[in-house]
């Protein structure tokens, strides 16, 4: 399938169309909404299902010797991408040091929904991928946060020059590391790994047949939220900042593609690794930023990540990353 055909097939997939429905409804100020409790359930379900299925895949195939190398590459990418993002933001925008650090943390970390959307594209294309990449996704959540913290603190001239309670770095790491989404994803992965096919048989209708419909409902909600973010938050962003939300995923994708040349992943696995690097967080990192860098403005980092980069990745990024992966691994 050519890159163009891939892009069209992706744009016409139920996932993207449900996202577009939510986005359109929100921009048109429809009263369509997903209740908070349902949205939380969907997020939990998504973490559980993707983690569990990844664990089962590893139980079936066994631990690949490449796993450690891929994990290490994931951690490095997550830690290094914020350095590039921070530098570009400071050079091209008027964002403060704290805001630039917070935004760059989002781009070093990952979006599990973008990852799920990419896996569904691969399944549609019949491209196999390594199940353990779910665990790689989980370990890529936090290194970016640490890099951003170091950047913000170094630029501020010291660990604590702000008013308020001095932060204990150890407890901050515990709060960030024990973020509910990371715990659910890794915990479900381990449960899937331990129980394997026996476990899969027990929970299959829940995490299997219902999965795609649930993602569509989740993406409808994401569309509604992204639309609200665009409506209210884009005014707070300058054009160079919006441009960053579009070119930064491509820079991260190029870095990941280079790393994948040495990793020995399949074409599907390479596409997922590129997608992980190119995606920007909007679940774990915003919560971490409210604790670690509360002076950073959510209207900037959430709008960029959710209102600019997520729609870009979902509509155009994923087919491009799959095409790039097949190009270098085909």
């Amino acid at each position, binding site marked *: 399938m050519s890159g163009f055909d891939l892009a069209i097939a992706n744009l016409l997939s139920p996932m993207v169309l449900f996202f577009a429905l939510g986005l359109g409804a929100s921009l048109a100020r429809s009263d369509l909404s997903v209740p908070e409790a349902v949205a939380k359930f969907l997020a939990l379900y998504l973490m559980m299902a993707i983690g569990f299925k990844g664990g089962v895949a590893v139980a079936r195939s066994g631990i690949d010797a490449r796993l450690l190398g891929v994990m290490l590459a994931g951690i490095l990418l997550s830690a290094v991408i914020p350095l590039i993002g921070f530098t570009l933001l400071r050079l091209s925008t008027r964002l403060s040091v704290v805001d630039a650090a917070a935004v760059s943390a989002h781009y070093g970390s990952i979006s599990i929904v973008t990852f799920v959307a990419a896996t569904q594209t691969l399944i549609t294309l019949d491209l196999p991928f390594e199940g353990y990449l779910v665990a790689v996704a989980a370990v890529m959540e936090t290194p970016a946060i640490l890099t951003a913290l170091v950047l913000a603190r170094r630029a501020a001239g010291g660990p604590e020059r702000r008013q308020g309670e001095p932060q204990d770095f150890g407890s901050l790491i515990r709060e960030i590391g024990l973020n509910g989404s990371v715990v659910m994803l890794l915990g479900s992965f381990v449960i899937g790994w331990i129980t394997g096919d026996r476990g899969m048989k027990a929970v299959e209708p829940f995490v299997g047949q219902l999965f795609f419909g649930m993602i569509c409902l989740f993406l409808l909600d994401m569309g509604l939220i992204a639309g609200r973010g665009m409506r209210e938050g884009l005014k707070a962003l300058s054009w160079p900042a919006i441009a960053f939300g579009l070119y930064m995923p491509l820079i991260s994708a190029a870095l990941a593609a280079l790393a994948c040349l040495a990793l020995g992943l399949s074409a599907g696995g390479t596409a997922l690794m590129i997608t992980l690097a190119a995606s920007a967080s909007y679940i774990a990192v915003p919560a971490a930023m*409210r604790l670690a860098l509360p002076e950073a403005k*959510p209207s900037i980092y959430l709008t960029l990540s959710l209102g600019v980069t997520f729609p870009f990745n979902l509509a155009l990024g994923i087919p491009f990353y799959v095409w790039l992966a097949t190009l270098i691994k085909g």
Partner: protein
Amino acid sequence: MQTFTKKRIAIVIEQPALNRVLEKLDQLAVTGYTVYPVIAGRGREGSWRADGMVSDAGRMVSVVCVCDPAKVDTIVEPIFKIVSRQVGIITISDCEVIRPDHF
């Protein structure tokens, strides 16, 4: 019915910082507190609503505790150190209670 004057401390704080506030209240040996969900609002940092967020970041909660007037400073000062860096409000008002030994 006889009532007694106490102080009601209301803290509106971002959901991610809730545990820090509750841990501090536990350390301060506050006799009790209540956490309320809040739905939507607008402040200096803009408007927000509970069902418009994909994570807890951006959601707010309200913590209310009632205490003896003599304890207000010992409670509010350490709590303010947490709230001062976050989006949040602390208000202190008079209230009447029926069982003064509970606070």
